[in-house]
């Protein structure tokens, strides 16, 4: 059963002296209970705005359209009071920079117990007990003492674990993690990935993971949605997307990644350059006829510059979708 069903989500920002910007257009996905969905894209692709719209956190000039069904209700039409009953309770959030999502003036205890007192009406004492337990679950040593400290007294990785523990206090059904490891070192990132994996497995929390890092997605996500210039370009299971990417952009992204296991070890000089995607992504608000990726696409045809492709099922791939006018077989030939 689908936990969250998003249909034709759009996000439009109005500007005072210019035409409005469509940051997200026609994005649809479903999140199943206990599954992890990875949303991948470069900066400006609309991946963060997609979840901000779901949470009602768009800035004042942003307007969401479409539908986002959660427990029979459309999140996009709820008022702030109704949203507050869901946010931080049924849907938890973890953001990129733990230092800015924690209040520097409050002890960790105050920030953690707030959610429980607000949503569960438990006593401060009980809330504190649960908060300490949650900190222990995310491997904070000496949690009973550390809980009375301020955020600046924690390291970056520990702060992120505090925000994850806070989000999990109310045992949400969905955890939205927006670039949760981007500000962290690789060794700490590995710890956070492992932690998220464990929570997903043990508590059955469904996760929407937003990241630009294909490696992080590969380790965590069951399904992956790739976004470019506000639209979904490909959506499939992680397995099939990494094995046979069918959209030229997904292919380009995977090819452009420098890899540790590249065979370049033998020589110490003249090895092949990295594959790149030429050009730059379109600026926000730039008028695009046709496929937004066409100007950078090695597979682009005449037609691509005129008609925007719509998301269509990929033949032979269960629950696989792609938005590209060129057939899959031709893309494999051109790009490889």
């Amino acid at each position, binding site marked *: 059963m689908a936990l969250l069903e998003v249909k034709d989500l759009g996000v439009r920002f109005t500007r005072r002296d210019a035409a409005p910007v469509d940051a997200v257009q026609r994005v649809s996905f479903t999140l199943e209970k206990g599954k992890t969905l990875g949303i991948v894209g470069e900066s400006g692709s609309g991946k963060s705005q997609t979840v901000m719209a779901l949470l009602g956190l768009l800035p004042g000039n942003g307007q969401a359209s479409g539908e986002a069904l959660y427990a029979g209700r459309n999140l996009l039409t709820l008022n702030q009071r109704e949203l507050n009953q869901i946010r931080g309770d049924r849907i938890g959030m973890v953001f990129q920079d733990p230092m800015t999502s924690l209040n520097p003036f409050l002890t960790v205890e105050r920030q953690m117990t707030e959610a429980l007192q607000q949503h569960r009406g438990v006593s401060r004492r009980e809330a504190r007990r649960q908060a300490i337990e949650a900190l222990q679950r995310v491997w904070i040593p000496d949690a009973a003492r550390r809980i009375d400290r301020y955020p600046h007294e924690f390291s970056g990785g520990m702060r992120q674990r505090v925000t994850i523990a806070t989000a999990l206090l109310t045992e949400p059904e969905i955890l939205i993690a927006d670039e949760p490891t981007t500000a962290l070192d690789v060794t700490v990132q590995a710890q956070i990935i492992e932690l998220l994996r464990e929570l997903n497995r043990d508590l059955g929390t469904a996760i929407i993971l937003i990241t630009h890092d294909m490696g992080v997605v590969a380790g965590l996500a069951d399904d992956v949605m790739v976004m470019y210039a506000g639209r979904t370009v490909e959506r499939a299971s992680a397995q099939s997307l990494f094995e046979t990417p069918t959209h030229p952009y997904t292919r380009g992204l995977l090819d452009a990644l420098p890899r540790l296991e590249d065979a370049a070890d033998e020589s110490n000089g003249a090895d092949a*350059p990295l594959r790149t995607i030429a050009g730059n992504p379109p600026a926000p608000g730039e008028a695009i006829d046709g496929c937004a990726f066409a100007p950078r696409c090695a597979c682009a045809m005449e037609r691509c510059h005129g008609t925007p492709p719509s998301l269509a099922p990929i033949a032979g791939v269960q629950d696989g979708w792609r938005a590209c006018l060129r057939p899959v077989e031709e893309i494999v030939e051109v790009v490889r």
Partner: protein
Amino acid sequence: MSETTTRIAIGNAAVERQPGGSSAGAAGEAVLSVQDLKVHFRVPRGGYPWSPKATLRAVEGVSFEIRRGETVGLVGESGCGKSTLARAIIGLTPVTAGSVRWRDTETVRDGHRPAAAMERLRKDVQMVFQDPLASLDPRMTIEQIVAEPLKVQRPELGRDEVRARVLTMLERVGLGVHHLARYAHEFSGGQCQRIGIARALVGEPQLVICDEPVSALDVSIQAQIVNLLRDLQRELSLSLLFVAHDLAVVKAISQRVLVMYLGRVMELGTRHEVYGSPQHPYTRALLSAVPRPDPAVERTRQHPVLTGEMPSPLNLPSGCAFRTRCPEAVAACAEEVPQPVSRGTGERRVACIRVGVALKADAVI
């Protein structure tokens, strides 16, 4: 300096180039050599500026060299001192002890910088910074930004000559004449980094220090910049010191790699040595923590490798700095600071007393 130099023209400018380019790297002569460099900061121990001071050992006795036409990758977690080391070499941070030699000039001697030597250094060594937009003056046009190093270092050049060189350089990094009069905010992150590279290279330096030059960029742009740096390096026979935390990027560009932890060198060797058969437990941990973009690999791999946090550089552990998190640590590790010395064949240096004892060839990656 070399008798057999060919000259390739960059517009009207000409740059010395050694035949063979970077392939001569392994056997090339050292242009920069750093000896036992230490950078310490006095910082308040408590939360207030007037609290008693303690010594933060950001760089604690680092020695290495960079050869002509070679790229040395400098990796480590945040707080390991890699940026401080880079900044100390170029003179942006005072040094506490040790020496730095740039070709035949000693630019740091026993922690002091002779002024005349710094003049020389500034001409020959340039830097590319992490944040592409923040490192460009918002009130200068692109032409002014790229021309500034020439105006300072080559005052004898005429206006037309400066403009010609700026334009040639901009074209070389993929920008054009129509960009000259624009301002930095009109460019994307990748384009700003191209401008930063043009600014660093326009004065024909011989060593360019790149401090996390691609970590603020998107993947597709990152690959473009890495390729650009690689091409320029080969063409101009530049030496590069490439500071980054992304191990895969460092692998793509470096000939030799230096791994730092808490201000000290843990392992130093060719890319082949460090990535192919890492010897130091820290290098191994670091490499195995990198997530692979392949679900099949990621799901079956052992997780995570390192527990715990990096100790504070205000209060280093005795002996090996890594021993508090090291899976191989024994009592002897606490007794003496292990020096990065050659252990076995090749030019690899490893600062670990356990190499060859406990670490059998159980390839971690």
